[in-house]
Protein backbone atom coordinates (compact mmCIF):
# COMPACT_ATOMS: atom_id res chain seq x y z
CA UNK A 1 0.00 0.00 0.00
CA UNK A 2 2.62 2.49 1.09
CA UNK A 3 4.85 1.17 -1.69
CA UNK A 4 2.39 2.21 -4.33
CA UNK A 5 1.92 5.59 -2.63
CA UNK A 6 5.70 6.12 -2.68
CA UNK A 7 5.71 5.09 -6.28
CA UNK A 8 3.03 7.61 -7.18
CA UNK A 9 4.74 10.36 -5.22
CA UNK A 10 8.08 9.67 -6.94
CA UNK A 11 6.40 9.70 -10.30
CA UNK A 12 4.72 13.03 -9.54
CA UNK A 13 7.96 14.66 -8.33
CA UNK A 14 9.94 13.42 -11.31
CA UNK A 15 7.24 14.56 -13.71
CA UNK A 16 7.44 18.00 -12.12
CA UNK A 17 11.22 18.05 -12.48
CA UNK A 18 10.88 17.07 -16.13
CA UNK A 19 8.26 19.76 -16.64
CA UNK A 20 10.51 22.43 -15.11
CA UNK A 21 13.40 21.44 -17.41
CA UNK A 22 11.24 21.61 -20.49
CA UNK A 23 9.45 24.77 -19.46
CA UNK A 24 12.80 26.58 -19.27
CA UNK A 25 13.08 26.08 -23.03
CA UNK A 26 9.61 27.54 -23.43
CA UNK A 27 10.41 30.49 -21.16
CA UNK A 28 13.65 31.29 -23.00
CA UNK A 29 11.84 31.17 -26.33
CA UNK A 30 9.04 33.43 -25.13
CA UNK A 31 11.48 35.83 -23.50
CA UNK A 32 13.82 36.13 -26.48
CA UNK A 33 10.95 36.69 -28.89
CA UNK A 34 9.19 39.16 -26.58
CA UNK A 35 12.36 41.23 -26.17
CA UNK A 36 13.52 40.98 -29.76
CA UNK A 37 10.40 41.31 -31.87
CA UNK A 38 9.97 45.06 -31.19
CA UNK A 39 13.28 45.60 -32.99
CA UNK A 40 11.85 44.03 -36.13
CA UNK A 41 8.80 46.27 -35.82
CA UNK A 42 11.02 49.29 -35.34
CA UNK A 43 13.31 48.87 -38.36
CA UNK A 44 11.77 46.12 -40.45
CA UNK A 45 12.96 42.50 -40.67
CA UNK A 46 14.47 42.93 -44.13
CA UNK A 47 16.38 46.05 -43.14
CA UNK A 48 17.67 44.28 -40.03
CA UNK A 49 18.93 41.26 -41.93
CA UNK A 50 20.38 42.96 -45.00
CA UNK A 51 21.66 46.18 -43.38
CA UNK A 52 25.45 46.49 -43.76
CA UNK A 53 25.99 48.89 -40.89
CA UNK A 54 25.96 47.99 -37.22
CA UNK A 55 26.53 51.18 -35.24
CA UNK A 56 24.58 51.30 -32.00
CA UNK A 57 25.61 54.90 -31.26
CA UNK A 58 23.90 55.99 -34.49
CA UNK A 59 20.95 53.64 -34.09
CA UNK A 60 22.06 51.62 -37.15
CA UNK A 61 21.39 47.92 -36.66
CA UNK A 62 22.15 45.78 -39.71
CA UNK A 63 23.39 42.26 -39.02
CA UNK A 64 24.42 41.40 -42.57
CA UNK A 65 28.19 41.45 -41.77
CA UNK A 66 27.59 39.11 -38.83
CA UNK A 67 25.44 36.79 -40.94
CA UNK A 68 28.17 36.59 -43.56
CA UNK A 69 30.77 36.21 -40.82
CA UNK A 70 28.90 33.34 -39.14
CA UNK A 71 28.42 31.69 -42.52
CA UNK A 72 32.11 31.96 -43.48
CA UNK A 73 33.44 30.86 -40.12
CA UNK A 74 31.04 27.90 -39.98
CA UNK A 75 31.86 26.82 -43.51
CA UNK A 76 35.57 27.08 -42.75
CA UNK A 77 35.15 25.06 -39.57
CA UNK A 78 33.31 22.35 -41.50
CA UNK A 79 35.97 22.32 -44.21
CA UNK A 80 38.52 21.54 -41.50
CA UNK A 81 36.50 19.52 -39.00
CA UNK A 82 34.51 17.32 -41.38
CA UNK A 83 37.33 15.53 -43.20
CA UNK A 84 39.34 15.24 -39.97
CA UNK A 85 36.38 13.95 -37.98
CA UNK A 86 35.11 11.58 -40.63
CA UNK A 87 38.61 10.27 -41.28
CA UNK A 88 39.06 9.66 -37.57
CA UNK A 89 35.69 7.89 -37.34
CA UNK A 90 36.44 5.69 -40.36
CA UNK A 91 39.82 4.78 -38.91
CA UNK A 92 38.31 3.90 -35.53
CA UNK A 93 35.43 1.92 -36.98
CA UNK A 94 37.07 0.11 -39.90
CA UNK A 95 40.83 -0.03 -39.52
CA UNK A 96 42.01 0.11 -35.92
CA UNK A 97 41.58 -2.77 -33.52
CA UNK A 98 38.80 -2.54 -30.91
CA UNK A 99 41.26 -1.57 -28.17
CA UNK A 100 42.75 1.44 -29.94
CA UNK A 101 39.27 2.42 -31.16
CA UNK A 102 38.10 2.53 -27.55
CA UNK A 103 41.15 4.59 -26.57
CA UNK A 104 40.57 7.06 -29.42
CA UNK A 105 36.89 7.34 -28.57
CA UNK A 106 37.81 8.08 -24.99
CA UNK A 107 40.23 10.81 -26.05
CA UNK A 108 37.71 12.40 -28.39
CA UNK A 109 35.18 12.46 -25.55
CA UNK A 110 37.79 14.12 -23.32
CA UNK A 111 38.23 16.73 -26.00
CA UNK A 112 34.52 17.54 -25.77
CA UNK A 113 35.08 18.35 -22.10
CA UNK A 114 37.76 21.01 -22.67
CA UNK A 115 36.25 24.45 -21.86
CA UNK A 116 35.86 26.58 -24.96
CA UNK A 117 37.88 29.38 -23.39
CA UNK A 118 40.88 27.02 -23.41
CA UNK A 119 40.43 26.41 -27.13
CA UNK A 120 40.20 30.18 -27.58
CA UNK A 121 43.31 30.76 -25.50
CA UNK A 122 45.37 28.30 -27.52
CA UNK A 123 44.04 29.89 -30.70
CA UNK A 124 44.95 33.33 -29.40
CA UNK A 125 48.50 32.42 -28.42
CA UNK A 126 49.36 30.00 -31.23
CA UNK A 127 47.13 30.30 -34.29
CA UNK A 128 46.62 34.09 -34.39
CA UNK A 129 50.36 34.95 -34.25
CA UNK A 130 51.09 32.17 -36.76
CA UNK A 131 48.63 33.61 -39.27
CA UNK A 132 49.86 37.16 -38.66
CA UNK A 133 53.47 36.15 -39.23
CA UNK A 134 53.17 33.74 -42.14
CA UNK A 135 49.98 34.71 -44.00
CA UNK A 136 49.59 38.39 -43.21
CA UNK A 137 46.77 40.53 -41.85
CA UNK A 138 46.04 41.06 -38.16
CA UNK A 139 45.89 37.34 -37.43
CA UNK A 140 42.50 37.75 -35.79
CA UNK A 141 40.51 36.41 -38.70
CA UNK A 142 37.97 34.13 -40.34
CA UNK A 143 40.77 31.61 -40.78
CA UNK A 144 41.80 31.62 -37.12
CA UNK A 145 38.16 31.20 -36.04
CA UNK A 146 37.62 28.40 -38.56
CA UNK A 147 40.66 26.47 -37.34
CA UNK A 148 39.71 26.79 -33.67
CA UNK A 149 36.09 25.84 -34.39
CA UNK A 150 37.15 23.05 -36.74
CA UNK A 151 38.81 21.34 -33.79
CA UNK A 152 35.98 22.14 -31.42
CA UNK A 153 33.41 20.36 -33.63
CA UNK A 154 35.58 17.23 -33.89
CA UNK A 155 33.98 15.41 -30.94
CA UNK A 156 30.49 15.83 -32.41
CA UNK A 157 31.66 14.92 -35.89
CA UNK A 158 33.63 11.87 -34.73
CA UNK A 159 31.17 10.36 -32.30
CA UNK A 160 28.03 10.80 -34.41
CA UNK A 161 29.61 9.52 -37.62
CA UNK A 162 31.36 6.70 -35.72
CA UNK A 163 27.96 5.53 -34.45
CA UNK A 164 26.59 5.75 -38.01
CA UNK A 165 29.46 3.61 -39.31
CA UNK A 166 29.08 1.02 -36.55
CA UNK A 167 25.37 0.76 -37.42
CA UNK A 168 26.24 -0.56 -40.89
CA UNK A 169 25.57 -4.32 -40.74
CA UNK A 170 28.73 -6.41 -40.36
CA UNK A 171 27.31 -8.72 -43.04
CA UNK A 172 27.91 -5.97 -45.64
CA UNK A 173 31.60 -5.93 -44.74
CA UNK A 174 31.88 -9.72 -44.70
CA UNK A 175 30.24 -10.00 -48.10
CA UNK A 176 32.51 -7.39 -49.62
CA UNK A 177 35.62 -9.00 -48.15
CA UNK A 178 34.48 -12.40 -49.39
CA UNK A 179 34.25 -10.92 -52.89
CA UNK A 180 37.92 -10.05 -52.66
CA UNK A 181 37.55 -6.43 -51.58
CA UNK A 182 40.21 -4.65 -49.58
CA UNK A 183 39.10 -2.87 -46.42
CA UNK A 184 39.37 0.49 -48.16
CA UNK A 185 37.24 -0.71 -51.09
CA UNK A 186 34.68 -2.00 -48.61
CA UNK A 187 34.58 1.38 -46.88
CA UNK A 188 34.36 3.36 -50.09
CA UNK A 189 31.84 1.24 -51.96
CA UNK A 190 29.50 -0.02 -49.24
CA UNK A 191 30.13 1.29 -45.72
CA UNK A 192 30.22 5.03 -46.44
CA UNK A 193 27.24 4.97 -48.84
CA UNK A 194 25.22 3.00 -46.27
CA UNK A 195 26.12 5.42 -43.48
CA UNK A 196 25.66 8.60 -45.47
CA UNK A 197 22.52 9.83 -43.72
CA UNK A 198 24.16 9.43 -40.32
CA UNK A 199 27.27 11.21 -41.56
CA UNK A 200 25.08 14.01 -42.90
CA UNK A 201 23.43 14.25 -39.48
CA UNK A 202 26.88 14.47 -37.88
CA UNK A 203 27.81 17.32 -40.19
CA UNK A 204 24.58 19.18 -39.44
CA UNK A 205 24.93 18.77 -35.67
CA UNK A 206 28.54 19.93 -35.96
CA UNK A 207 27.31 22.95 -37.92
CA UNK A 208 24.91 23.77 -35.11
CA UNK A 209 27.77 23.51 -32.63
CA UNK A 210 29.96 25.78 -34.77
CA UNK A 211 27.25 28.41 -35.13
CA UNK A 212 26.55 28.41 -31.41
CA UNK A 213 30.13 28.63 -30.14
CA UNK A 214 30.88 32.09 -28.78
CA UNK A 215 33.75 32.41 -26.33
CA UNK A 216 36.54 30.83 -28.35
CA UNK A 217 35.48 32.74 -31.45
CA UNK A 218 35.44 36.11 -29.69
CA UNK A 219 39.03 35.50 -28.63
CA UNK A 220 40.41 34.89 -32.14
CA UNK A 221 37.99 36.54 -34.60
CA UNK A 222 38.87 40.21 -34.20
CA UNK A 223 35.16 41.06 -33.99
CA UNK A 224 35.06 43.91 -36.54
CA UNK A 225 31.54 44.66 -37.79
CA UNK A 226 32.51 44.84 -41.47
CA UNK A 227 31.85 42.19 -44.11
CA UNK A 228 35.15 40.26 -44.38
CA UNK A 229 36.66 40.33 -47.86
CA UNK A 230 39.16 37.55 -47.33
CA UNK A 231 39.70 34.74 -44.84
CA UNK A 232 42.49 36.81 -43.29
CA UNK A 233 40.12 39.65 -42.37
CA UNK A 234 38.66 40.02 -38.90
CA UNK A 235 35.08 38.93 -38.50
CA UNK A 236 32.22 39.06 -36.01
CA UNK A 237 29.68 36.25 -35.65
CA UNK A 238 26.07 36.52 -34.52
CA UNK A 239 26.75 34.99 -31.13
CA UNK A 240 29.81 37.17 -30.54
CA UNK A 241 27.69 40.20 -31.37
CA UNK A 242 25.31 39.43 -28.51
CA UNK A 243 28.02 38.48 -26.03
CA UNK A 244 30.17 41.53 -26.73
CA UNK A 245 27.48 44.19 -26.40
CA UNK A 246 24.87 42.77 -24.05
CA UNK A 247 26.58 44.22 -21.00
CA UNK A 248 26.09 47.88 -21.84
CA UNK A 249 23.10 47.88 -24.18
CA UNK A 250 19.75 49.52 -23.57
CA UNK A 251 16.60 50.39 -25.48
CA UNK A 252 16.56 49.64 -29.19
CA UNK A 253 20.17 48.42 -29.03
CA UNK A 254 19.17 45.79 -26.47
CA UNK A 255 16.16 44.80 -28.55
CA UNK A 256 18.38 44.49 -31.64
CA UNK A 257 20.64 42.09 -29.73
CA UNK A 258 17.65 39.95 -28.77
CA UNK A 259 16.55 40.10 -32.40
CA UNK A 260 19.99 38.72 -33.31
CA UNK A 261 19.17 35.94 -30.86
CA UNK A 262 15.91 35.23 -32.70
CA UNK A 263 17.79 34.88 -36.00
CA UNK A 264 20.22 32.44 -34.37
CA UNK A 265 17.38 30.55 -32.74
CA UNK A 266 15.64 30.06 -36.09
CA UNK A 267 18.85 28.95 -37.85
CA UNK A 268 19.81 26.42 -35.18
CA UNK A 269 16.26 25.06 -34.87
CA UNK A 270 16.08 24.54 -38.63
CA UNK A 271 19.42 22.73 -38.58
CA UNK A 272 18.26 20.41 -35.82
CA UNK A 273 15.06 19.62 -37.69
CA UNK A 274 17.05 18.81 -40.83
CA UNK A 275 19.46 16.63 -38.83
CA UNK A 276 16.59 14.72 -37.27
CA UNK A 277 14.98 14.22 -40.68
CA UNK A 278 18.30 12.95 -42.03
CA UNK A 279 18.65 10.44 -39.19
CA UNK A 280 15.05 9.29 -39.62
CA UNK A 281 15.47 9.03 -43.38
CA UNK A 282 18.53 6.86 -42.80
CA UNK A 283 16.94 4.45 -40.34
CA UNK A 284 13.72 4.15 -42.37
CA UNK A 285 15.64 2.48 -45.17
Amino acid sequence: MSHSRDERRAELVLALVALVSVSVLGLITVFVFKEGLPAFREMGLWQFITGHRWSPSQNAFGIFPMLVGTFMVTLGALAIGMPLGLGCAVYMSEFSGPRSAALLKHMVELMAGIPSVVFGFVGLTVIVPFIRTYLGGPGFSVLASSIVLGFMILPTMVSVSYDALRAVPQAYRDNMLALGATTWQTVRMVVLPSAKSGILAAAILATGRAIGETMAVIMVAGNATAVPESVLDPVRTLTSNIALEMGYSAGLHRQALFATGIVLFVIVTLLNLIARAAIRGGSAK
Partner: protein
Amino acid sequence: METYRSQDFGDKAEKIRVEKFNLYYGNFHALKDIDAVIVENAITAVIGPSGCGKSTFLRSINRMNDTVEGVSTTGRILLDGEDIYRPDVDVTWLRSKVGMVFQRPVVFPLSVFDNVACAPRLQGTTDRAELVDIVERSLDAVGLWDQLKHKLKEPALSLSLGDQQKLCIARAISVEPEVILFDEPCSALDPVNTLKIEELMWGLREHYTIVIVTHNMQQAARVSDYTMFMLDGRLIEYGPTSSIFTKPQDPRTEKYITGKLV
Protein backbone atom coordinates in the same frame (compact mmCIF):
# COMPACT_ATOMS: atom_id res chain seq x y z
CA MET B 1 39.61 -42.33 -39.98
CA GLU B 2 40.92 -43.73 -43.22
CA THR B 3 41.99 -40.94 -45.47
CA TYR B 4 39.83 -40.73 -48.53
CA ARG B 5 42.26 -41.28 -51.40
CA SER B 6 42.19 -39.36 -54.65
CA GLN B 7 41.57 -42.51 -56.71
CA ASP B 8 38.25 -42.81 -54.90
CA PHE B 9 37.01 -39.75 -56.83
CA GLY B 10 37.11 -41.53 -60.20
CA ASP B 11 38.11 -39.18 -63.00
CA LYS B 12 37.50 -35.97 -61.02
CA ALA B 13 40.55 -33.77 -60.62
CA GLU B 14 41.80 -32.61 -57.25
CA LYS B 15 41.16 -28.90 -56.55
CA ILE B 16 41.75 -28.41 -52.87
CA ARG B 17 43.98 -30.42 -50.56
CA VAL B 18 43.81 -29.97 -46.80
CA GLU B 19 46.82 -31.24 -44.86
CA LYS B 20 46.98 -31.56 -41.07
CA PHE B 21 44.98 -28.36 -40.76
CA ASN B 22 44.36 -26.99 -37.27
CA LEU B 23 42.63 -23.77 -36.32
CA TYR B 24 42.48 -22.07 -32.93
CA TYR B 25 40.27 -19.21 -31.72
CA GLY B 26 42.60 -18.01 -29.00
CA ASN B 27 42.91 -21.14 -26.84
CA PHE B 28 39.91 -22.88 -28.32
CA HIS B 29 40.94 -25.68 -30.68
CA ALA B 30 38.22 -25.41 -33.34
CA LEU B 31 39.61 -27.60 -36.15
CA LYS B 32 41.74 -30.65 -35.41
CA ASP B 33 44.09 -32.29 -37.88
CA ILE B 34 41.83 -32.06 -40.90
CA ASP B 35 43.06 -34.04 -43.92
CA ALA B 36 40.94 -34.05 -47.06
CA VAL B 37 40.89 -33.69 -50.81
CA ILE B 38 38.10 -31.77 -52.53
CA VAL B 39 37.56 -32.31 -56.25
CA GLU B 40 36.45 -30.21 -59.19
CA ASN B 41 33.04 -30.20 -60.86
CA ALA B 42 31.41 -31.76 -57.86
CA ILE B 43 29.45 -30.69 -54.83
CA THR B 44 31.00 -31.59 -51.50
CA ALA B 45 28.71 -31.22 -48.49
CA VAL B 46 29.95 -30.71 -44.95
CA ILE B 47 27.53 -31.89 -42.28
CA GLY B 48 27.66 -32.21 -38.52
CA PRO B 49 25.98 -30.91 -35.38
CA SER B 50 26.10 -27.22 -34.44
CA GLY B 51 29.52 -26.16 -33.22
CA CYS B 52 31.32 -29.05 -34.89
CA GLY B 53 33.49 -26.60 -36.86
CA LYS B 54 31.92 -27.07 -40.29
CA SER B 55 31.46 -23.33 -40.93
CA THR B 56 34.93 -22.62 -39.57
CA PHE B 57 36.31 -25.21 -41.97
CA LEU B 58 34.45 -23.60 -44.88
CA ARG B 59 35.72 -20.15 -43.92
CA SER B 60 39.27 -21.51 -43.78
CA ILE B 61 39.16 -22.15 -47.52
CA ASN B 62 38.80 -18.44 -48.37
CA ARG B 63 40.52 -17.25 -45.19
CA MET B 64 37.47 -15.39 -43.94
CA ASN B 65 38.54 -16.50 -40.47
CA ASP B 66 41.37 -13.98 -40.80
CA THR B 67 38.86 -11.24 -39.94
CA VAL B 68 38.24 -12.81 -36.51
CA GLU B 69 40.64 -11.64 -33.85
CA GLY B 70 42.90 -14.19 -32.21
CA VAL B 71 42.72 -16.84 -34.94
CA SER B 72 45.81 -18.95 -35.60
CA THR B 73 46.32 -21.99 -37.82
CA THR B 74 48.77 -24.78 -38.45
CA GLY B 75 49.00 -27.14 -41.40
CA ARG B 76 48.21 -26.29 -45.00
CA ILE B 77 45.35 -25.82 -47.41
CA LEU B 78 46.43 -26.11 -51.04
CA LEU B 79 44.46 -24.61 -53.90
CA ASP B 80 45.74 -26.03 -57.18
CA GLY B 81 48.86 -27.08 -55.29
CA GLU B 82 49.53 -23.60 -53.83
CA ASP B 83 49.43 -23.16 -50.06
CA ILE B 84 46.87 -20.39 -49.44
CA TYR B 85 48.22 -19.81 -45.92
CA ARG B 86 51.67 -18.78 -47.10
CA PRO B 87 52.38 -15.29 -45.76
CA ASP B 88 52.85 -13.78 -49.21
CA VAL B 89 49.41 -14.85 -50.46
CA ASP B 90 47.14 -11.89 -51.27
CA VAL B 91 43.82 -12.71 -49.61
CA THR B 92 41.89 -10.46 -51.99
CA TRP B 93 43.26 -12.56 -54.85
CA LEU B 94 42.36 -15.75 -53.01
CA ARG B 95 38.82 -14.55 -52.37
CA SER B 96 38.30 -13.64 -55.99
CA LYS B 97 39.17 -17.27 -56.84
CA VAL B 98 37.13 -18.72 -53.98
CA GLY B 99 33.70 -17.09 -53.86
CA MET B 100 31.30 -17.36 -50.96
CA VAL B 101 27.53 -17.31 -50.48
CA PHE B 102 26.37 -16.65 -46.95
CA GLN B 103 23.58 -17.95 -44.78
CA ARG B 104 21.39 -14.89 -45.10
CA PRO B 105 21.24 -13.21 -48.49
CA VAL B 106 23.04 -9.88 -48.12
CA VAL B 107 22.32 -7.44 -50.89
CA PHE B 108 23.76 -3.97 -50.57
CA PRO B 109 21.43 -0.96 -50.52
CA LEU B 110 22.25 -0.37 -54.19
CA SER B 111 20.54 -1.15 -57.49
CA VAL B 112 20.33 -4.69 -58.89
CA PHE B 113 22.96 -3.76 -61.46
CA ASP B 114 25.39 -2.27 -58.95
CA ASN B 115 24.98 -5.21 -56.61
CA VAL B 116 26.34 -7.53 -59.27
CA ALA B 117 28.75 -5.04 -60.82
CA CYS B 118 30.44 -4.16 -57.54
CA ALA B 119 32.34 -7.46 -57.60
CA PRO B 120 34.02 -7.02 -61.03
CA ARG B 121 34.60 -3.35 -60.14
CA LEU B 122 36.67 -4.55 -57.19
CA GLN B 123 38.94 -6.30 -59.67
CA GLY B 124 39.35 -3.04 -61.56
CA THR B 125 36.80 -3.50 -64.34
CA THR B 126 35.46 -0.03 -65.15
CA ASP B 127 34.41 -0.38 -68.78
CA ARG B 128 30.63 0.08 -68.87
CA ALA B 129 30.00 -2.29 -71.78
CA GLU B 130 32.06 -4.97 -70.14
CA LEU B 131 30.18 -4.52 -66.85
CA VAL B 132 26.82 -4.72 -68.65
CA ASP B 133 28.01 -7.93 -70.25
CA ILE B 134 29.15 -9.43 -66.95
CA VAL B 135 25.89 -8.50 -65.20
CA GLU B 136 23.83 -10.09 -67.95
CA ARG B 137 25.92 -13.25 -67.97
CA SER B 138 25.86 -13.59 -64.18
CA LEU B 139 22.13 -12.95 -63.81
CA ASP B 140 21.47 -15.34 -66.66
CA ALA B 141 23.49 -18.04 -64.95
CA VAL B 142 21.24 -17.87 -61.88
CA GLY B 143 18.04 -17.60 -63.92
CA LEU B 144 17.25 -14.01 -62.97
CA TRP B 145 18.01 -12.26 -66.25
CA ASP B 146 14.62 -12.56 -67.94
CA GLN B 147 12.87 -11.44 -64.78
CA LEU B 148 15.18 -8.51 -64.02
CA LYS B 149 16.54 -7.27 -67.34
CA HIS B 150 14.18 -4.28 -67.26
CA LYS B 151 14.59 -3.72 -63.53
CA LEU B 152 18.36 -3.37 -63.29
CA LYS B 153 18.08 0.12 -61.82
CA GLU B 154 15.65 -0.88 -59.08
CA PRO B 155 16.89 -1.33 -55.52
CA ALA B 156 17.98 -4.90 -54.92
CA LEU B 157 16.35 -4.82 -51.49
CA SER B 158 12.94 -4.85 -53.20
CA LEU B 159 13.52 -8.42 -54.44
CA SER B 160 12.10 -11.44 -52.62
CA LEU B 161 14.44 -13.23 -50.20
CA GLY B 162 14.90 -16.15 -52.60
CA ASP B 163 15.77 -13.81 -55.46
CA GLN B 164 18.13 -11.88 -53.20
CA GLN B 165 20.00 -15.12 -52.53
CA LYS B 166 20.16 -15.81 -56.27
CA LEU B 167 21.48 -12.30 -56.74
CA CYS B 168 24.19 -13.04 -54.16
CA ILE B 169 25.13 -16.14 -56.15
CA ALA B 170 25.20 -14.06 -59.34
CA ARG B 171 27.48 -11.60 -57.58
CA ALA B 172 29.75 -14.40 -56.40
CA ILE B 173 30.12 -15.88 -59.89
CA SER B 174 30.46 -12.51 -61.64
CA VAL B 175 34.21 -12.51 -61.01
CA GLU B 176 34.53 -16.05 -62.38
CA PRO B 177 35.82 -17.82 -59.30
CA GLU B 178 36.91 -21.43 -59.47
CA VAL B 179 35.51 -22.49 -56.13
CA ILE B 180 32.20 -21.41 -54.54
CA LEU B 181 31.60 -21.92 -50.83
CA PHE B 182 27.99 -22.04 -49.66
CA ASP B 183 27.47 -21.47 -45.94
CA GLU B 184 23.98 -22.86 -45.21
CA PRO B 185 22.64 -20.92 -48.20
CA CYS B 186 19.02 -22.01 -47.76
CA SER B 187 18.53 -21.70 -44.01
CA ALA B 188 16.70 -18.37 -44.41
CA LEU B 189 14.56 -19.59 -47.32
CA ASP B 190 11.24 -21.41 -47.67
CA PRO B 191 11.11 -24.94 -49.20
CA VAL B 192 10.26 -23.73 -52.73
CA ASN B 193 13.19 -21.33 -52.86
CA THR B 194 15.41 -23.93 -51.21
CA LEU B 195 14.73 -26.32 -54.08
CA LYS B 196 15.39 -23.57 -56.62
CA ILE B 197 18.76 -22.76 -55.06
CA GLU B 198 19.63 -26.46 -54.95
CA GLU B 199 18.80 -26.83 -58.65
CA LEU B 200 20.94 -23.80 -59.32
CA MET B 201 23.89 -25.28 -57.42
CA TRP B 202 23.48 -28.55 -59.30
CA GLY B 203 23.78 -26.63 -62.57
CA LEU B 204 26.80 -24.64 -61.38
CA ARG B 205 28.62 -27.83 -60.51
CA GLU B 206 29.50 -28.28 -64.19
CA HIS B 207 31.84 -25.29 -64.01
CA TYR B 208 32.92 -24.95 -60.41
CA THR B 209 34.19 -26.71 -57.36
CA ILE B 210 31.39 -26.36 -54.83
CA VAL B 211 31.54 -26.86 -51.09
CA ILE B 212 28.35 -26.49 -49.08
CA VAL B 213 27.86 -26.47 -45.35
CA THR B 214 24.41 -27.51 -44.30
CA HIS B 215 22.64 -28.58 -41.14
CA ASN B 216 19.97 -30.15 -43.31
CA MET B 217 20.86 -33.78 -43.99
CA GLN B 218 18.17 -34.18 -46.64
CA GLN B 219 19.75 -31.29 -48.47
CA ALA B 220 23.19 -32.87 -48.31
CA ALA B 221 21.71 -36.13 -49.58
CA ARG B 222 19.83 -34.41 -52.41
CA VAL B 223 22.48 -32.06 -53.68
CA SER B 224 25.96 -33.39 -53.03
CA ASP B 225 28.33 -35.85 -54.66
CA TYR B 226 30.53 -36.25 -51.58
CA THR B 227 29.86 -35.71 -47.92
CA MET B 228 32.12 -34.92 -45.00
CA PHE B 229 30.85 -35.59 -41.50
CA MET B 230 32.47 -33.49 -38.78
CA LEU B 231 32.26 -33.76 -35.02
CA ASP B 232 34.06 -31.70 -32.35
CA GLY B 233 36.43 -30.14 -34.88
CA ARG B 234 37.45 -33.45 -36.43
CA LEU B 235 36.63 -34.90 -39.83
CA ILE B 236 35.05 -38.22 -38.86
CA GLU B 237 34.03 -39.65 -42.17
CA TYR B 238 34.26 -38.62 -45.79
CA GLY B 239 33.05 -40.39 -48.89
CA PRO B 240 30.51 -40.50 -51.71
CA THR B 241 27.22 -39.14 -50.42
CA SER B 242 25.32 -42.31 -51.29
CA SER B 243 27.59 -44.52 -49.21
CA ILE B 244 27.75 -42.09 -46.26
CA PHE B 245 23.99 -42.06 -46.03
CA THR B 246 23.40 -45.77 -46.75
CA LYS B 247 26.32 -47.53 -45.13
CA PRO B 248 28.29 -45.21 -42.85
CA GLN B 249 31.54 -46.72 -41.58
CA ASP B 250 31.77 -44.87 -38.30
CA PRO B 251 29.16 -45.44 -35.58
CA ARG B 252 29.10 -41.68 -34.84
CA THR B 253 28.18 -40.92 -38.46
CA GLU B 254 25.41 -43.45 -38.28
CA LYS B 255 24.13 -41.95 -35.03
CA TYR B 256 24.10 -38.47 -36.56
CA ILE B 257 22.37 -39.31 -39.82
CA THR B 258 19.74 -41.36 -38.01
CA GLY B 259 19.06 -38.37 -35.79
CA LYS B 260 20.42 -39.84 -32.55
CA LEU B 261 23.21 -37.31 -32.24
CA VAL B 262 22.35 -33.64 -32.25
